[in-house]
């Protein structure tokens, strides 16, 4: 066999594989989404019984859905309010620790990402029982913050690695106070990352299931509600909700990617997820 034809065979294999992989990735989601518009009472796309929007209508009248959305927003806001400052403080601290202490501290601080989410939920639940605090949105905030703060910390840390230390030194030499250095140099330098960290923290919180499962008490979040609906009370309204979820996700992903590309240097390859470990959504590499 000559070299050219073996290359052609190889290329068609690769193409076949790519098509198969992306079909595998997207077709199930498309199939599920299509069922949201089918008149059938059980969520299915075949047999097609006619186009309808009634399942979206059903969502509007679902009061449980709206209250769980409210809880999700509340928990998300709480997580953002805690994990962004925690991540910022921890990253600044790590930045100046000695190498050996830093490695240890860093290991402890990223460990929540390497643990199953259920463990974080369980340990939070058990710990707060000692103070007579039961499950609820506040425990959901605390349990989620445990690992979401790690992502925020990693994002700030990546940014800090690009900080020119002479800025700070120059400011201090010129007589700036520590507060001034923080307010005029560090915080403006870190501000774009803080916005990114807040977005990631919110999305992580919004879609979290495993950790929330053990601590939500009676404050059901939207993800918990959705999972419950999938298991009992399944109608195509669940698909309608899924379609909305997917559309929002796609919008967020596209927006995020677009923003990052606008910031990235044109020659650089995209790095989708430097911190792509754990249950993460991609954390943008700064």
């Amino acid at each position, binding site marked *: 066999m000559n070299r050219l034809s073996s290359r052609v065979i190889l290329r068609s294999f690769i193409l076949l594989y790519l098509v198969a992989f992306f079909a595998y990735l997207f077709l199930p989601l498309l199939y599920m989404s299509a069922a949201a518009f089918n008149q059938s009472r059980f969520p299915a796309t075949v047999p097609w019984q006619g186009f309808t929007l009634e399942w979206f209508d059903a969502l509007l009248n679902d009061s449980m859905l709206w209250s769980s959305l409210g809880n999700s927003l509340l928990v998300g806001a709480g997580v953002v309010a805690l994990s962004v400052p925690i991540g910022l403080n921890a990253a600044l601290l790590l930045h100046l620790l000695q190498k050996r202490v830093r490695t240890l501290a860093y290991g402890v601080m990223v460990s929540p*990402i390497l643990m199953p989410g259920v463990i974080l939920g369980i*340990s939070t639940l058990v710990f707060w029982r000692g103070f007579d605090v039961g499950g609820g949105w506040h425990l959901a905030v605390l349990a989620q*913050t445990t690992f979401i703060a790690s992502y925020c910390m990693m994002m700030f840390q990546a940014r800090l690695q690009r900080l020119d230390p002479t800025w700070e030194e120059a400011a201090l030499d010129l007589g700036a106070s520590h507060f001034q250095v923080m307010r005029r140099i560090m915080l403006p330098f870190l501000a774009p990352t803080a916005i990114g960290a807040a977005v990631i923290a919110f999305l992580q919180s919004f879609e979290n299931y495993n950790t929330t499962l053990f601590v939500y008490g009676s404050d059901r979040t939207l993800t918990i509600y959705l999972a419950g609906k999938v298991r009992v009370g399944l109608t195509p309204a669940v698909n309608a909700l899924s379609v909305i979820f997917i559309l929002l996700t796609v919008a967020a992903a596209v927006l995020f990617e677009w923003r990052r590309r606008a910031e990235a240097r044109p020659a650089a390859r995209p790095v989708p997820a430097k911190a792509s470990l754990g249950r993460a959504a991609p954390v943008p590499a700064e």
Partner: protein
Amino acid sequence: MQALVARYGGPITALMIFTSLVWVLGLLLLPQLTMIDYSFRPALPLAEIGGPKDVYTLENYTFLFGNAGFLTIFAKTIWSSILVTIAAFAICYPLAYYLARGTSIGRARLLIVALIIPYWINEILRTFAWMLILARGGLINMALMELGVIDQPIVFLGQTPTIVLGMVYAYVLFMVFPIYNVLDTLDKAQVEAARDLGAPWWCIHWRIALPHAKPGIAVGCISTFMLAAGSYAVPTILGGPQSRWFTEVIYSQFFEGMNWNRGAAFAFLLLLVCVTFIVIMMRLFRVSLGEVAK
């Protein structure tokens, strides 16, 4: 410490240390230690907690190892999670290599955006999609019956292999990105040199690409295994009473059996399994914790 104070000043340093300690101790370490403490105590009525019967014991652990049913579920969860990890690696290594080395930068970018979208979609939705496809009246059964291959629908849901398939689908992208990230730094000249010297394609992967990708493979495997072993959504949506996952056992100890101590013991075992897996991967791939948690 002095460097810190010199750089940030006393009050700011104090704030940074305080905030970090609240997080690491208050949210992470103390809850973990409480959970471990719970796991070594008997389940007692509220009145007897702290009383003479509240002593350290191994009974929550010996219970698991004396209960064939739970022990089977525990072993099956570990074994199946390993299968998920291997399968995810097998199907995504070629993709990661293609994205990093096999195509133009422009096309790789486009494909990566296409990967990021499902990566961001909630795992419950991704699993739900497969539930509809595999249900009794779902897509696959309908198609097979239409084609006359079967006359009775096949029961997919509630079987362990179905859960494994569902998990591969739900977690495969956690394997793609870490491997892609390291392969992206592979020097193209090395691959070309090997090819010029007559190395066949499998040799290039075995001797150059795979060794280079080790840290990424380790991270991908650790993430995938942890997600699979700790998954609750996939086994509850695609599974049934015959295919229980260890997380479901833990959940039922907490919210059905109301035996938090036993639940804590089971949770700690799950954590130990994941830690052991991390250590094994680090040894196997000779990577340090710093590289893994980068």
